[in-house]
């Protein structure tokens, strides 16, 4: 006979305001098998948990139902409480009467009725719960970091410092990411390269870190503690181990008219190139789309001048396979394409640039050696207009619904740097709101306005029209003065929204992690587990999870590293016991389940059965590897004989819930 305890939580007034918790406790107390039914103000608090623990001991409970918030919130809390009172943690069920009842309904009578039905369903289910014991699986003591920007570098350095091997996979020929392209950083105005490049060198020299540059993740298999990842090392046609990075080949290469991606296309590079002087690894890469030798088979200059003999035109993409215990995603962001914003004349006028392009134009290692010149005629601009929120906070399909977060601050930085260096230049900033939450951020913005006399105008720019005299007509509205403005600008800078890198979505599919509608990775809990994904063993670092500035990115990177280390220090981890299992007496070995299993967890074994006539028959039956099974349940439905069932969500349990609800 089952002895079930029901515990109804008030959650302060979150539940109690719309659900009559006493009535719920009373009604559930009358359910068969329920021998104790109590309500309490905060069931998740220590005294609330003690109430549950004491009841388990006192009444020798065989099952517990907690009517409270979502099981995604506190299921583990109550399972742990049950375990500490000596009850198998999987004999606890949660009825969600907060998120799915009290918070969405207003009428007390009907909300109470619904809460009782949800409670009854949970009681019906817990009657059929079986004690489950979690198995263990070993942890591979190696981490993979996907993305080699500041987030990836910081994560890798922190994990390496704890003594674990880390691999960084970076799709570009060098690590460094977006931060390497940035000129100065707010709010301190220190040089980005000066703080980033030492970290890049540190990563390359650390004995625990292996950098796979110019590589991509091709496939991910496995599960927490034991991922098998296939990394595609793209052919760079240069032997990484031989190249010394002397750069002679890049000087001698006859094909010098390739737009330089690192300088946002403002100058040219050669077909064989090193992205920038501080690149790590400092190894040349041949761009096969522009190399004469690759296209026509005639040239070979680089191989002739290379004294190390590193050039290999016949190199092919290489796949390497490696085991990892933890994976950290640090794929970062990209500014959005501005094709849909014709009103800002970005495609028509070379003097309309994005903020990232302005970073390169102002950078000492940029195309103009640090002098700010108009891209069109290389003259000094005297009037610059900044347009904020280009594609951010959009309510149409053209842009992004979210705030890109970093634009207000970097625009204040740009404006300040320009006013500092060229006091004769007038700077206008058109904004919707100026958002500067952050340490020393508002002070920084106010300095731009008060000390540097940057003209901040609340209003949106309606149209940007390039004129024949080289000036750009900026038509805008000043919302505070309620007037239309025309500004003859020399340059227009657009603060383009940022979006997750294009590689993020296919990667999320490989990793089976969640993404939101904007393609940012979803964290396991928005407040309490911000650096873990909902998939065990996958951690999130930097702007792949949401727009972030550098200090926040670094903080999250270190947090992700800490979480990965917590996993890697363990020799083994407990598996999810809610896995499929096959009733061998019913299984006829038809292979239906094996075909639908996405993890390859089902194999077939020949098993001996004692037949009624005392003979022994050998039959082929399905066998589930509990360490590989993730518990989706696809096989349970595919099984024609009903032999497959899922622990924790068994056929009988779900049917009991259906029956309880439909009664």
């Amino acid at each position, binding site marked *: 006979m089952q002895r079930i305890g029901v515990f109804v939580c008030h959650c302060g007034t979150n539940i109690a305001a719309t659900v009559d918790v006493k009535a719920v406790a009373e009604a559930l107390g009358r359910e068969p098998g329920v021998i104790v039914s109590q309500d309490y103000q905060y069931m998740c608090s220590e005294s609330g948990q003690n109430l549950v623990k004491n009841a388990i001991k006192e009444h020798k409970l065989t099952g517990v139902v907690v009517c409270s918030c979502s099981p995604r919130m506190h299921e583990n809390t109550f399972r742990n409480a049950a375990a500490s009172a000596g009850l198998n943690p999987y004999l606890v069920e949660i009825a969600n009467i907060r998120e799915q009842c009290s918070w969405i309904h207003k009428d007390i009578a009907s909300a109470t009725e619904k809460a009782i039905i949800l409670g009854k369903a949970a009681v019906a289910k817990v009657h059929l719960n079986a004690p489950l014991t979690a198995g263990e699986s070993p942890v591979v003591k190696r981490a993979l970091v996907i993305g080699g920007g500041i987030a990836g570098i910081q994560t890798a350095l922190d994990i390496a410092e704890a003594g674990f091997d880390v691999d960084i996979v970076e799709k570009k020929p060098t690590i460094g990411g977006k931060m390497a392209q940035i000129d100065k950083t707010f709010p301190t105005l220190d040089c980005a390269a000066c703080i980033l490049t030492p970290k890049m060198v540190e990563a390359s020299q650390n004995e625990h870190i292996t950098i796979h540059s110019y590589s991509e993740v091709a496939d991910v298999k496995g599960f927490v503690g034991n991922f098998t990842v296939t990394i595609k090392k793209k052919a760079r046609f240069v032997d990484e181990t031989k190249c010394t990075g002397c750069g002679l080949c890049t000087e001698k290469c006859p094909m010098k008219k390739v737009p330089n991606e690192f300088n946002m296309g403002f100058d040219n590079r050669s077909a064989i190139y090193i992205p920038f002087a501080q690149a790590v690894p400092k190894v040349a890469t041949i761009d096969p789309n522009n190399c004469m030798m690759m296209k026509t088979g005639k040239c070979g200059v680089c191989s002739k001048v290379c004294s190390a003999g590193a050039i290999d035109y016949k190199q092919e993409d290489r796949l390497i396979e490696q085991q990892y215990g933890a994976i950290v995603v640090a794929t970062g962001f990209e500014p959005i394409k501005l094709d849909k914003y014709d009103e800002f004349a970005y495609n028509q006028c070379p003097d309309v640039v994005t903020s990232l392009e302005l970073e390169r134009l102002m950078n000492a290692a940029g195309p103009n050696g640090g002098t700010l010149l108009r891209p069109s005629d290389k003259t000094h601009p005297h009037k610059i207009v900044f347009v904020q929120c280009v594609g951010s906070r959009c309510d149409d399909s053209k842009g992004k619904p979210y705030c890109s977060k970093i634009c207000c601050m970097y625009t204040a930085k740009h404006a300040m740097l320009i006013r500092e260096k060229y006091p004769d230049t007038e700077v206008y900033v058109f904004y919707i709101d100026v958002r500067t939450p952050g340490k020393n951020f508002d002070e920084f913005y106010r300095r731009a306005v008060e000390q540097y006399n940057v003209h901040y105008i609340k209003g949106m720019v309606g149209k940007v029209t390039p004129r024949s005299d080289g000036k750009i007509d900026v038509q805008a509205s000043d919302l505070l003065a309620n007037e239309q403005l025309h500004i003859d600008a020399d340059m227009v800078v657009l603060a383009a929204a940022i979006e997750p890198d294009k590689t993020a979505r296919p990667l999320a599919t490989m990793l089976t992690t*969640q993404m939101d509608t904007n393609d940012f990775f979803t964290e396991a809990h928005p407040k309490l587990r911000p650096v873990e994904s909902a998939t065990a063993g996958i951690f999130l670092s930097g702007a792949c999870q949401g727009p972030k500035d550098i200090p926040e990115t670094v903080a999250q990177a270190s947090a992700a590293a800490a979480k990965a280390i917590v996993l890697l220090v363990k020799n083994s981890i407990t598996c999810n016991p809610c896995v499929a299992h096959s009733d061998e007496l019913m299984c006829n070995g038809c292979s239906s389940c094996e075909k639908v299993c996405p993890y390859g967890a089902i194999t077939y074994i020949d098993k001996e059965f004692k037949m009624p006539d005392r003979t022994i028959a050998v039959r082929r039956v399905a066998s589930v590897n509990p360490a590989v099974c993730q518990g*989706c349940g696809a096989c349970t439905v595919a099984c024609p004989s009903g032999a497959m069932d899922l622990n924790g969500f068994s056929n009988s349990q779900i049917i009991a819930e*259906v029956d309880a609800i439909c009664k």
Partner: protein
Amino acid sequence: MQVNENKEFQPLIVAFCCNWCSYAGADLAGTNRLNYPDNIKIIRVPCSCRVNPMFILRAFQRGADGVILCGCHPGDCHYTSGNYFTRRRMTLLFSMLDFLGIERDRTRVEWVSAAEGAKFAATMNEFTEAVKKLGPNRRLEDLRCRKQ
């Protein structure tokens, strides 16, 4: 469910929600206090592909007036491919129900991500309205199962 002369028909609707996307979406609807009718009773399953067509028939047999199945968007399944199985299985089940003369609007498969609280609430409002229009499920309900 009962139909009183002066009271509007209140359908009983069972919603199966996958743990990773739709159940989280339902939680998000709750967190954002987005109202939807109390006719909806949610059952949590690990993945939409855990829902055996038998469960849906069982719900109808026991007197449910509508059944909705929510999963992750195609391509976003936590278990990689579970919702594709769901899509195929439910296409078959629904065509069978159609053959049996069960109105198409009593059943639905909807993809709701963990970020789509608003979509979850809107879908549930819409679905409840659609089932209300159809009236009680008389064809599949087994009167022997009805509680006296």
